[in-house]
Each structure stands twice: as C-alpha cells, then as structure tokens.
C-alpha cells in the first residue's frame, strides 16, 4: 500500500482499514459503465438507440403537444404544423357515449361508477361488507341493463343509439359475465367421465378456437336470423353479444380447465370420501381453489376480449374504434386519421395496460413459492 507521500504503509494482518470502492465502479459513472458501455458492441448499440430516441421522441412530442392545436371547429381551422386535436375535442362526447341522448349521459356515468364499485369487490379481498358486495356485483348486470336501456320509469334508449367507449365496455363486460358460467360448464364437461358429454364439449371448444372471431360474428349476424322461428328477431347488438359470448366462453373454458388440472387429486378424493355429491364437490372444494389460481388467466382473456370487441365495427356497430373510423370520413375532418387513431389507441392502451399490470400484481401475490 502506498500513501499520499509515496511511502509504503504497512498494516498488521486483519487491521487493514475499509477502503472506498474504485470511483469508476459505483454511482452514476459505474452504472453507466456497467449498463450502457460494458463492451464495444454494447457501446455501439447504446449510441444507435440513443440516436433513434433523439430522432423519434422530440418529433413526436412536437407533433402531439408543442405544435398541436386543440381549438377549432373543422379541419380548415387547424393552421398549425402539428396534430389537430380539435376533432377529438368536438367529438369527445360521441366517442364516449355514441348517439346516446345527451340529457341521459348521467345514466351511463352512474352505470360506470357502479361498475367500478362492483369490480372493486370482485378484485380486492379486504373490503368491508364483502359478502354483500359480491351479491351486489352479481346483481350488477341487471341494474346496469335497466340503467342503460331504460324502463322502471327511465326513458327507453334503443341499443342502436349506444356507441363509443360505452359500447366497447358493455360488450367486454357482457362477454366476460356470460363466458364465465358457460366456460365453467364447458371445462367441467371436458373433464367429465361421461364420453358423450366430453366429446361434445371438446368439439365445441376446439371448433370455436379454430376459427377467427369475425367468422363467428358473421355467423351470429347472418345465420342466426335464419335459425330463429318466424317473428322472433334479435337486434344487432344482441346478435353480436351472442357471438362474442360463445367465442370467449371457449377460451375461458381452456383457462379454467388449466385451473382444474392444477388441483391435486387428493382434493377430489377427500371430497368424495366425505360423501359430497359431484356438484357439492365442485362447488365447495374444487372450483373455489381452481378459479382462484386462474384469475390472472381470466384477466388476460378479458384483455383479449376487450381488444377483440373492436371487431364488431365490421358487422356495423359503432364501438369506440367504429365511431372514430366514422368520424375521420366526415368531410369537415378529412385527413385527420392519425389524431383520431392516436386517441383511440391511447384509450385502449390505458385500459389494457392497467389490466395487465393488475394481472401481474395478482400473479406475484398468488405466487408464494420460492423465486429466483
């Protein structure tokens, strides 16, 4: 060891004072050296991606924020070089509520708030009055139906006036609410000992999973009217909902089957040894455990369903994407597709990203084993 004056200092064994680590391997400099410039190829990659970021981000920010314009009532009012958000501002209510009468918006907003409450009771365990909360969540679809469609003293609103984000959420929630029970039945059927029941369930699940959603929607919108007796007619939204529910229940069934398979055989045997009937065994012992394991999978299915609900625009419904697509063909707003799609994309992204974060959080919470 050499001290500042150049003389060698000696320490008795075990008496060496703690020295600070080399300055270049700690702190910001150390972090940069380790994470950005650890080798020559790494340094090149860093410089290339930094150049890429510097090329894209300022231009994007300038377009979306700094040079953007929000006020104005038509395309020609936008004289700036950046984005013209006036379209989104003018049409915002339509993007959210479709053609729902403006005086009744409060019903949609109230249904949304009630939905958040119901979701909170389903998703989080430690809320007060949980039993009542779950009962309320189970009844929520009926409450929401009367709130949105009318009846019980409220003005009737035809479903072809529903649209925008509200319709997207209605399709998503209905899809998930209908597909859970159907999916459970299908999953139980697929694992049943009865050969005919099993074959039917497998055939249904594999058939639906093998075809694109759009063909199922076509089937629901074109073939369903042919299947029904004379005089019975479903409206367009209901047909789409039937298609979406059938489609997502096949996927849901596979997710739930994964959960059923993860329950050890001892659980089934113990339930049978106690003399429980099949439905009691499933309802009280197996399903509560199985469903709990697959909640992340159910959330992921829901994210997929939420994104797929945009396909209803092809059969002529105006969900968020459908109404945005209709807005950009308006002669007053021609050429603003980037702004409109950016708005719709950001809205979908916020929903899907937060749901996927919840799913990951839950997975970590349920994953109590050892992690590397």
């Amino acid at each position, binding site marked *: 060891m050499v001290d500042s004056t150049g003389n060698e200092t000696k320490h008795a064994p075990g008496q060496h004072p703690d020295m600070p680590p080399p300055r270049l391997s700690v702190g910001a400099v150390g972090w940069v050296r380790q994470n950005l410039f650890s080798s020559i190829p790494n340094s090149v990659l860093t410089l290339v991606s930094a150049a890429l970021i510097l090329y894209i981000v300022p231009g994007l920010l300038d377009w979306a924020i700094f040079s953007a314009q929000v006020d104005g009532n038509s395309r020609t009012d936008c004289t700036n070089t950046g984005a013209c958000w006036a379209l989104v501002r003018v049409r915002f209510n339509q993007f959210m509520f479709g053609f729902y009468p403006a005086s009744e918006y409060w019903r949609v907003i109230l249904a949304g708030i009630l939905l958040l409450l119901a979701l909170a009771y389903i998703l989080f365990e430690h809320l007060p009055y949980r039993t009542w909360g779950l009962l309320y969540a189970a009844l929520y679809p009926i409450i929401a139906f009367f709130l949105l469609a009318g009846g019980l003293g409220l003005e009737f609103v035809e479903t072809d006036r529903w649209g925008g984000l509200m319709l997207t959420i209605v399709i998503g929630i209905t899809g998930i609410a209908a597909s859970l029970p159907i999916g459970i039945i299908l999953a139980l059927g697929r694992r049943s000992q009865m050969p005919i029941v099993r074959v039917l369930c497998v055939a249904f699940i594999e058939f639906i999973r093998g075809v694109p959603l759009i063909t199922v929607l076509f*089937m629901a919108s074109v073939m369903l009217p042919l*299947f029904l007796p*004379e005089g019975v007619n479903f409206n367009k939204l209901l047909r789409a909902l039937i298609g979406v529910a059938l489609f997502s229940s096949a996927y849901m069934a596979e997710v739930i089957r994964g959960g059923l398979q993860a329950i050890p055989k001892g659980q089934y045997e113990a339930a049978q040894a106690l003399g429980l009937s099949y439905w009691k065994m499933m309802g009280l012992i197996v399903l509560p455990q199985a469903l709990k394991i697959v909640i992340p999978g159910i959330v992921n299915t829901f994210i997929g369903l939420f994104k797929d609900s945009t396909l209803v625009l*092809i059969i002529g419904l105006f969900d968020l994407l459908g109404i945005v697509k209709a807005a950009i063909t308006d002669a007053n707003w021609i050429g603003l*597709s980037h702004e409109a799609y950016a708005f719709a994309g950001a809205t*979908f992204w916020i929903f899907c990203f937060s749901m996927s974060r919840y799913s990951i959080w839950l997975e970590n919470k349920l994953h109590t084993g050892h992690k590397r």
Partner: protein
Amino acid sequence: MAVATAGTSQSGGTSLWRDPKARAIIVQVVVVASLVAFLWFIIHNTAVNLEKRGIATGFEFLSQPAGFDIATSIIAYDATMTHGRVFWVGLLNTILVAVLGVVFATVLGFILGVLRLSPNWLINRLAYVYIEVVRNIPVLLQILFWWAFFLGLPRVKDAINVFGQDIIFLSNRGLQSPWPVPEPGFGLVPIAFVVGIVATIVLARWARKRQEQTGQHFPVVWSGFGLIVGLPLLAFIVTGFPLSWDIPVQKGFNFKGGFAVTPEFTGLWLALSLYTAAFIAENVRSGIQAVSHGQTEAAYALGIKPSWTMRLIILPQALRVIVPPLTSQYLNLTKNSSLAIAVGFPDLVSAFGNTTLNQTGQAIEVISMTMAVYLGLSLAISVFMNWYNKKIALVER
C-alpha cells in the same frame, strides 16, 4: 342397463339416480336428446326461413360467374370467372399474408425477445416499451392505422422516387418495383441454387460427423452461405446475365408494368407482423429465462464463447419452452389475417365470405366453407408444430 340393475340389486331399493353409472347414462341420454331436439328446431326453422325467402340451398353458386374484380391475386383471375375461383383466390391470399406475416413476426419477435434480455439498459427498455405499447392496442386499430398511413403517402404524380433511379416508387397506390423477366439460359441459376442447398446439407452432415469424431470445428454457416448464394451468382455470371427488368412506368393516375404491392396488403401484413412479434418476443424472453443460469455458467466454465453458448446451449433448451406458445401465436396471426375485410384486402373472408355471400345470399354454405378452411389451416399448423415440438423435445429415458 345391466349395470344399473346390478347396482340396485346390491343395495336393494336404491333409486337409479343414486347409482353413478346409471346416472351417467341417464344424463347422457338427456344431453343427446336435447341436442337432437335443438338441432331439429334450428334445421326446421332454417328450412322454413329459406323457403320463404326463396333461397335454394346447395353449392351450384360455386360454378356461376362472379362478376366482380379482385385487386390482388396470385393466380389468374378476372370478373368472368366463377365464385369457385374467387374461393381459391381468397384462400391463396390468406395463406400469402399468413406465411409472410409469420416469417417477419418470428424474425422480429426473436430479435426483440433477445434484446429485451440484453444487459444494455437502454436497449432492453426500448424493447420493453415497444412490446407493452404494441400488444395493448387492438390489432384492428393497428391495421387501420398502417393502412391510413400508406394511403396518406403522396399521390402517383408526386410519387416518392426511392433511390432516385426511377425504378422504385412509393405512392398512395402502394409500392412499385421492377420485376425480373428471365431470358433463355436463366434456368441454370435455380439449378445452381438447388445444388447449393443440397451441397450445404451434405457439408453440414460431414462437418457434424467430423466434429463428433475429432472435435474439429468447420464453419458450416459461412461456407453454406457461400454455396447457396455464390453458386447461383456464378451461374448467373457465366451465362452472361440472362435477365431483364420490367420497370414500372407512370401512366395517367397509376403505374404500368413492374411489380406492385397495394397499401391494403402492406398495411395488413405490417400490422399483423408487428403485433404478433410483440407476443412472440414475450414468449422468447420467458423461454430463455426458463433455462437455468447454471447452463450459461457451465458453458463459460468450459471456455465456450458467448455467441456459441447462446446458439448451442441456451437456444436449443429454450426452444422447448418457446415452441408451444409460438404455435398459438402462429394460429392467432392466421386467424387475425381475416381482419383484411376491414381494409378491403381480398382474403378468404373479405372476397369469398363477404362479397360472394352478399351477391349470392348463400349464407350457410359460404360461412361453413370459410369456417372449414380456417379449421383446416389451424389443424395443419398444429400438426406441423407438434411434429416440430416432438423433434426438439428433451429426449429422456
């Protein structure tokens, strides 16, 4: 019902419902009966409805002339051809988008998946942002966005002259590029290409055998590249460049000659590939992470260099985890290609399942044929990927 009587005789007076085997039979009989009743109900209603609307069932419409044009077709097609021909045009277009999409999505997905695990902080953040942005936006929106983007390019009059050589043009009519026209003597080039591939396979076998016996390594990748690319190039030069180019020329509001890719195709293909690549990247990442870190350490301890460690140690093991979810991504991409209908690219659903259906009114036949094709495609992809999965699966005792 022999089982059921045996059950009752044993316990004496137990109802059939208490005997699991008898109950199973009863339940299945009820299920089959209600299914038959339901099907009869549907078929009866359909028959009545069809008769009332005056629609004849059957597949005769397939041999009737279609009478509409299709913008993109691999096989020869014009409006005088039949609906049966439209079916094949649509099917081939679906397969074209699916195959090209799968190739690009796989390449991009593997690159992104590896970058996502890079020790370089900036790179793995960039990959993370890409993956999280792209996979949380509906693919239909992305298709519409890219379509609008390609339609928003300059008009034909002001087409972007890529490379400034008057050979490749970008405009709102798509991408126009020269198309090679072979001249006599060109036949030698594909032959040389096939010879190159065969020679590479032979070489790879020989090199593998030699390495197993002597431990000496032979650079198969580089020499194979040389054989496959070099031999045809040599044949091309020897025969005196027997190739001319059909160059696109601007005529009126469009281009004539050359090779054209429509904005519909480009938008659909790009959006599907970019979307699926984000999912594949996540599969690749989790596959690589599933390989124990001890494998990397052991490889380094043996003095194997990092690039070989990845190729020879990590990837073969990771593939076993990656391939099953990769299969479902390929299936998803193929099924999502049906969204072509939103941009008007004439795939199976758009050309046959929509235009033909609207013209002929044969809803049941058209939709059943379309669904049957997708089921067949899904089955084919599953069978192939299961075969591949079995091939690379861990061989255990």
